[in-house]
């Protein structure tokens, strides 16, 4: 090859006809499946923006003629939920928030503490303890309902005694507190598993260095372990938030009426047996119910990716 050849031989992207076909197939499939996944969301959003006569009379895929948030407002503040006096889902939404925030925080923190002890402060039988916690991940919701009901009943009695004695229940017997307890206990197996596996790879020399530096058990946990656990904290929070927010079984079993979480209220709204079925209001309520988990994914997911990247780039 002469020098002139080298100069003219610029790198150029050449697509053969075969590779073009491949690309069309790949992108075509991607677009196809994206549409399939998006159709329900699109229908939900469009339906929620239509008045009821347009929903019942028109095509499900037709764009709303004059989009309005009236059914969103109705779902939030006015719609009848089951036989309850409370109007709209706003109260239940707040019930869910009051349940999910403490439940996620407590179960994540306890999981981190368990993981820390199971990897850095090993004791005889630590494998057995971890094995049993792992086993907790495989216990189905349904099988813990009756034992849980017994325990919650006991706590309720304690609450009643406390009210008799002091005039205040200290949270014993409160449905939201009960649900927090259920979700913390049930979630502990998962959060422990996440953190134990993360801390297993965490350099023990850091813990030793902190010990020599004079840090106590909890100081090491708070100052050394936790600040370096962002990725696994995010993973755990996403997982726990989604699970607890979307839980229906515990919510419908252990909380009633005005104290129900969002998922139960949504069910009561949609399954109403009186009057006309307001599809647009149902759709709006469903979107509102799904919004928090979506929000957590969008916000925390970015930190999650960033956390992973920080470890990957380091030499």
């Amino acid at each position, binding site marked *: 090859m002469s020098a002139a050849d080298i100069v003219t031989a610029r790198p150029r992207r050449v697509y053969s006809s075969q590779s073009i076909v491949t690309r069309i197939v790949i992108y075509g499939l991607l677009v196809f499946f994206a549409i399939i996944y998006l159709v329900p969301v699109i229908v939900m959003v469009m339906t929620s923006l239509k008045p009821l006569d347009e929903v019942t009379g028109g095509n499900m895929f037709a764009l709303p003629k004059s989009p309005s948030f009236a059914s969103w407002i109705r779902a939030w503040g006015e719609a009848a939920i089951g036989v309850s006096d409370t109007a709209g889902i706003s109260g239940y939404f707040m019930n869910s928030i009051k349940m999910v925030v403490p439940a996620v925080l407590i179960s994540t923190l306890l999981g981190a503490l368990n993981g820390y002890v199971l990897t850095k402060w090993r004791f005889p039988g630590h494998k057995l303890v971890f094995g049993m916690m792992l086993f907790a991940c495989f216990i189905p919701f349904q099988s813990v309902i009756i034992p849980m009901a017994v325990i919650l009943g006991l706590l309720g009695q304690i609450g009643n005694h406390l009210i008799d004695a002091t005039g205040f229940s200290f949270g014993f017997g409160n449905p939201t507190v009960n649900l927090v307890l259920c979700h913390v206990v049930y979630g502990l197996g998962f959060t422990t598993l996440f953190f134990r596996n993360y801390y297993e790879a965490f*350099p023990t*020399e850091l813990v*030793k260095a902190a*010990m020599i*530096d*004079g840090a106590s058990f909890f*100081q090491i946990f708070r*100052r050394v372990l936790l600040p370096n656990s962002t990725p696994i904290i995010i993973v755990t929070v996403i997982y726990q938030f989604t699970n607890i927010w979307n839980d229906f079984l515990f919510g419908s079993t252990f909380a009633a009426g005005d104290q129900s979480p969002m998922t139960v209220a949504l069910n009561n709204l949609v399954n109403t047996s009186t009057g006309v079925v307001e599809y647009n209001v149902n759709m709006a309520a469903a979107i509102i119910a799904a919004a928090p988990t979506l929000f957590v994914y969008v916000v925390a997911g970015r930190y999650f990716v960033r956390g992973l990247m920080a470890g990957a780039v380091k030499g």
Partner: protein
Amino acid sequence: MAFLEIKGLRKRYGALEVLKGIDLTLDKGGFLVLIGPSGCGKSTLLGTIAGLESISAGEICIEGQQINDLHPSKRDIAMVFQSYALYPNMTVAENMAFGMEMRGVSKPEREKAVAEVAKTLQLEHLLKRRPSQLSGGQRQRVAMGRALVREPRVFLFDEPLSNLDAKLRVDMRVEIKRLHQRTGATIVYVTHDQIEAMTLATRIAVLKDGELQQVGTPYEVYNTPANLFVADFMGSPSMNLLEGKVSRSNGTASVVIERAGTVPIAFPVPTSANVETLSEGARVIFGIRPEAVSDLESADGKSKSIMTFTSQVEIVEPAGSDTFVVTSIAGKEVTARMRADSDIRVGQSQVFALNLDKAVLFDPATTHRI
């Protein structure tokens, strides 16, 4: 009384005993290097001094105070880890101040101490950075700074240079030596690199299989190794070890090394050995360092007994500063150190000069030096 004293230290993991009765002492300002092959227990020994490992029997004292059961933070020690163990979430300054913070030292005092040490170690421009933004050598210096800033009674170094590249390792070695000379700190240092041990130590303790083989100054350990293991382990290239037999005649004893097909070599018994203990015909191992084997011109002029033999050159290894020549006696390889510019070729017959002042004898049965 010694500053650091270890008496009858034993460490067992179940049935496995990894430290089998260690006795060691170190004076204030001393630099003790623990050296040995992998798995000899040197890092475990350091861990027991730090308090990160419990002990099964024995006693560890600093300044006469028994510290066996004290928590690591109460022992007034600082440790530099092989992986540096810098807290990734803290800046360099926070890393260095963490120990003082945990001990409740006030913020202005912490900052003052950190600033002083940072100046000594030339870390001032790095104080605001995080460990992930530092190079290996910088991390190493921060790890040392974190230990220095607390002014502990004893510094523990666990193979601190083994994660650095060769050039940086030599630089850091010099820096550690300078630091020791300037601060007069008492240091216990674990390494498997015998050059680090020789250059840094005031005392070397050689370990093997959880037992002390020899404790002494670098000179003693190098020149009068207590047994075959120490002789072989210390020094690079390692000591030449040849099997021979004692022959006594006319009141003088000599070591005879048989050579197949040619005349045996006979050496007078080296001055380091106790002649009285040697009986006629006893088997011995004759040890001599490569630098005590050379050509005639470069043999040590001050030596009281030089002995020559002729042998064929098998391998020539130019190392820049010296040239190592390998020949063989009685089927055993013997390495000699020649001047770098000596004109030696493979296959030629060469006269080698042995400096018998530097030679030692070992008993093959007990492996101890005679």
